[in-house]
């Protein structure tokens, strides 16, 4: 048996960039990701203790040094943390919330994270998203679960337009939509000089 190898859904894709730092697209694999179901009053103290994050307002996210907490619904939150911390987080949250009516689920492998950064990030997203992504319509720490073309994902803005290299957006996308979305984003950014990645295809379908 060989040593375990962890492979991300976009292991076959290299980060892509448009000239002049107009846009950068890359995968940040293996973030710890924990879904928490429960009401904010029950979850709040545990999350503050374990991850140092406050409960976010609807459609927003909050951060601490190592964590980001995304609002997903009035009783659903997604905690992000550094790689390889998911089992420790699970245990700590489980302990802090023992006996409460909550659900704590490890979804670290369910999603991967696409990071889209640079002055053309908004326009690129607008080729796929129906959200109002104007700086007045979508701001730092805002969160939306939405569609990107035919892919589903959670969008969060992590750095504002004035920040160096900003704005920065992260999209949490499920494993099986990741390649499609990566390619759609490079396709949508063609006009900015982004090299286009073609979706994997060519599987034999004929008998």
């Amino acid at each position, binding site marked *: 048996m060989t040593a375990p190898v962890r492979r991300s859904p976009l292991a076959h894709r290299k980060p892509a960039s448009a000239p002049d730092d107009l846009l950068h697209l890359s995968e940040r694999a293996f973030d710890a990701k924990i879904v928490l179901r429960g009401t904010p009053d029950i979850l709040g103290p545990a999350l503050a203790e374990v991850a140092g994050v406050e409960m976010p307002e609807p459609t927003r996210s909050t951060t601490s040094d190592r964590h980001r907490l995304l609002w997903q619904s009035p009783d659903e939150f997604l905690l992000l943390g550094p790689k390889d911390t998911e089992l420790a987080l699970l245990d700590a949250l489980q302990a802090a919330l023992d006996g409460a009516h909550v*659900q704590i689920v490890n979804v670290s492998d369910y999603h991967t994270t696409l990071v889209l950064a640079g002055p053309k990030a908004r326009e690129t997203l607008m080729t796929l998203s129906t959200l109002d992504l104007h700086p007045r319509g979508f701001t730092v720490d805002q969160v939306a679960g939405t569609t990107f073309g035919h892919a589903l994902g959670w969008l969060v803005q992590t750095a504002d337009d004035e920040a160096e290299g900003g704005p920065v957006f992260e999209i949490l996308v499920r494993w099986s939509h990741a390649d499609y979305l990566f390619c759609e984003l490079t396709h949508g950014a063609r006009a900015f000089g982004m090299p286009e990645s073609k979706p994997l295809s060519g599987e*034999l379908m004929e008998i």
Partner: protein
Amino acid sequence: MSGTSRVQGRGLVDRSRPVTFRFDGREIRGFEGDTIASALLANGEIMVGRSFKYHRPRGIVGAGSDDPAAMVQVGDDAAATDPNVMVTTQEIHAGLQAGPQNCWPSLKYDIGVLNDVFMRFFPAGFYYKTFMGSDRFRWLNWMTFEPLIRAAAGLGKAPSKPDPDSYESVNRHCDVLVIGAGPAGLAAATNAARSGARVILVEETPHLGGSLLASDGDTTTIGGKSAADWVEAQKQKLSENPDVTVLTRTTAFGYYAMNFVGLIQRVKDHLPEHQRDAKQPRQRVWRIRAKQVVLATGAIERPLVFNENDRPGIMLASAVRTFLHRYGVLAGKRILIFANNDSAWQTAFDIRAAGGEVAGIVDVRRDLDEGLALRALKAGISVHPRTAIVGTHGRHRVDSAFVAGLDDGGNIRGTRSRIECDLIAVSGGWNPNVALFAQSRGKLKWDEGLASFRPGQSWQEERSAGACNGTLDLADAIAEGAKAGMEAARAADFTVRAVKQPAVETDAVQTLNLVPVWQVPSGLPREKTKAFVDLQDDVKASDLQLATEEGYDSVEHAKRYTTQGMGTDQGKTSNVNAFGIMAEARGITVPEVGTTTFRQPYRPVTIGALGGQHVGAHFMPRRGTPMHDWHRAQNAIFEPVGDWLRARAYPKAGESFQAAVQREARAARTTAGLLDATTLGKIDIRGKDARTFLNRVYTNAWSKLAPGHCRYGLMLGEDGMVSDDGVTACIADDHFHMTTTTGGAASVLQKLEDYLQTEWPDLDVWLTTVTEQWAVAAICGPKAEQIVASIVDGIDLDPAAFPFMTWRDGKIGSVPARVFRVSFTGEVSYEINVPATYGHWLWEQLIAAGKPHGLTPYGTEAMHLLRAEKGFIIVGQETDGTVTPGDLRMDWAVAKKKGDFIGKRSLSRSDTMRDDRKQLVGLLTFDGDHVPMEGAQIIGTADEPAPPVPMQGHVTSAYFSPNLGRSIAMALIKRGGQRMGETVWIARNGDKPVPAKIVGYDFLGDAKGEAA
């Protein structure tokens, strides 16, 4: 037809950049900025094609997207050719190839013109009357004729090969969307933008300015600036504002619900190949969601309907002005004006000012404005009041008009005389361009002064300004635009202070004084009058009159009967005239006739643009599992399951698909098989009421399932029909791991959330999908235990310690793994779950560990075969939404004594209790080599009787079983469960039915002598 008609010093074309293109096989010269139409006119040409039905010569009538019939085929590449391109909008560029449509063998000698000779025999409704309603032709049917008729009619040719161009659709939100960049639109956009609102301004042509570009810029001043300078100043203001987007060469084609507006931007169509940026799409669809919309789409001049009015060389008076001022082209050498209003007189004055010749002004009105008459006199233009054109002459272009006086009753009086001319500039008045307003579901209103419809009551958040609102006067239009822009910004929650609007001074005719004339009399009997209303569809006034007489009173019926307005132009220039003619024929007013429905798209949009970037490999996500690359590397054959691509079989080099399936299925029972089962839906269920919840959503009982154990469950709809199935494991008393079918994952989760949120909010249960958190490898067969034992730590695999329908946590290396001892094959089987990122690694470990034991990966086809050998159903294959658990003879999976569950009550409905329902059984064909076709009908006789054939059911699954050495099938057959051993026949298309015996469906168990 030689020489150029360019007028020095006019137009926006760039005379330093000559452009040569090909039309109808000939080289034509123009300048950058020309359209095909302006370049043809500059070269003295005007005929561009033939009409739809009668193949009559058709020329250039309009100067923009309102032109009814001047369409060409662009490009001669089978992949990139475009039909129905308007010569009035297509800009010329080097390499452009355009050809006439609807004529063969050539533009000027067209065989279809025979239709014209027989025009009298093609009245309104001809096709319906002849081929659908007539007794004479009843022996022939419409289907025989339709293709012939379509081939003979038709417009351009569709491309026959895949489109090589790329397209894109993008989304935008804005506060104010302004459609049209004429004087009103520019005023609206600049005034809205002052507020800080996000403004998008859309202009169909390459230039901002609209009607100002179709007039002499030196004779009009706005705010003390020449019209051209004013336009430039507005453009500057807009371009300096970062919150304003100006889109030219962009048409708003559809106004949909909630201020959702579709725009089509022609990004590269005007450029020669070498200037087309490969990074840009050919066309782009903008999907705009606007808080407020300002419609400033202008007005469309309507022609006059008179005898022989469809000859090339008969053009809208406003188009003549546009060609003169926008393109610097005099459309004719000797131009006759024919009008019923003042605005067309401006055309005569402009022609004279440009040094052209005016053959006269023929005006149907008796009372003419004295000032205008004086101006005409000064310009040396002869004026013919109370006169009408009653006929025209000229083969491929008009060469003269016949005119006659009118009496007070509007009838022809006196003799007709001839006026030589090579162009007739016509104006019947102006129709506010209300297409988008009407699409937005606004209510139209009749305007007596315009004798046309204009916006009445708005329905959505929009406002009309300028000519599209019936305001033709320039100063009024600018003021109205400014007001609309500010009001829109305010309605979008911005603040803007009113400022003084610029003063407008102009020599241009601003009055209308229209006297409506829907059909100009010709003095000829109706059947001899060729007065065309719709030039694209060849609808004559007489067709509309005939339709009315035949009872097609409703405007919508008459439209379909005559094809009025059904062409690609949507009747932009012709519809109001048609309504007027119908009103006269019925003796009622035009508003009483009403309008036909204005539909999207306003002008044709290529399908490619609507598809956008979502084509080819970008069409849909191709969902693959973490092991996908491995399957690809093995040259697996894939099949789509939902959006997933699953490995269907792994043929070896030289091996057929069927042989591979047989080999894989045999290995799974003789050594070991390995299946990628990652795609199964997985839902994590947690909460103190989780058991209660499962009891209510599954048909069987869950109260006593202990942690560590698994159970199979059937899910029904409230109608009692099987909707999904799967195995659910008890992780802890309040924690379960549910699996669903691959295709049912999303809908099951939705359904469970639905019940939890709306019916049973009192239950403390949480649901979270974990489908893609886990990669799943299912290993089965006699050697499975040995192989699993070699890589899994921490689980005692002894069947006594790890029995069937239980699960255990263990490790593979350092990776946590959850192993389920469940089986979809009947063999000893382990479904190994690891976090998805380890899936590929897990798969490789299993392949390596299984190699010495003959482990064989198998695909979904062998999986189907293996489960059928054991008689396990597949939801969606054995079921089709009409099948109950009883029909499947799976009553064992229904707990009748427990409380209510979804669909329970329906199981005791009289219909579901019928004893003659179809039931699932096994079928063994007498000939064991014959594999029936899935879906084949079951009948009760050895020979197929004459229809209607009594049907007894159908085959749901059929395979050749390598493990039983014969074919097996499952079927839903009436009363099947009570008919064991009976013979039925499987019908075949055009072949003798195949006899088969009804048996139980656990083929493998029966073969081994187990109970069925």
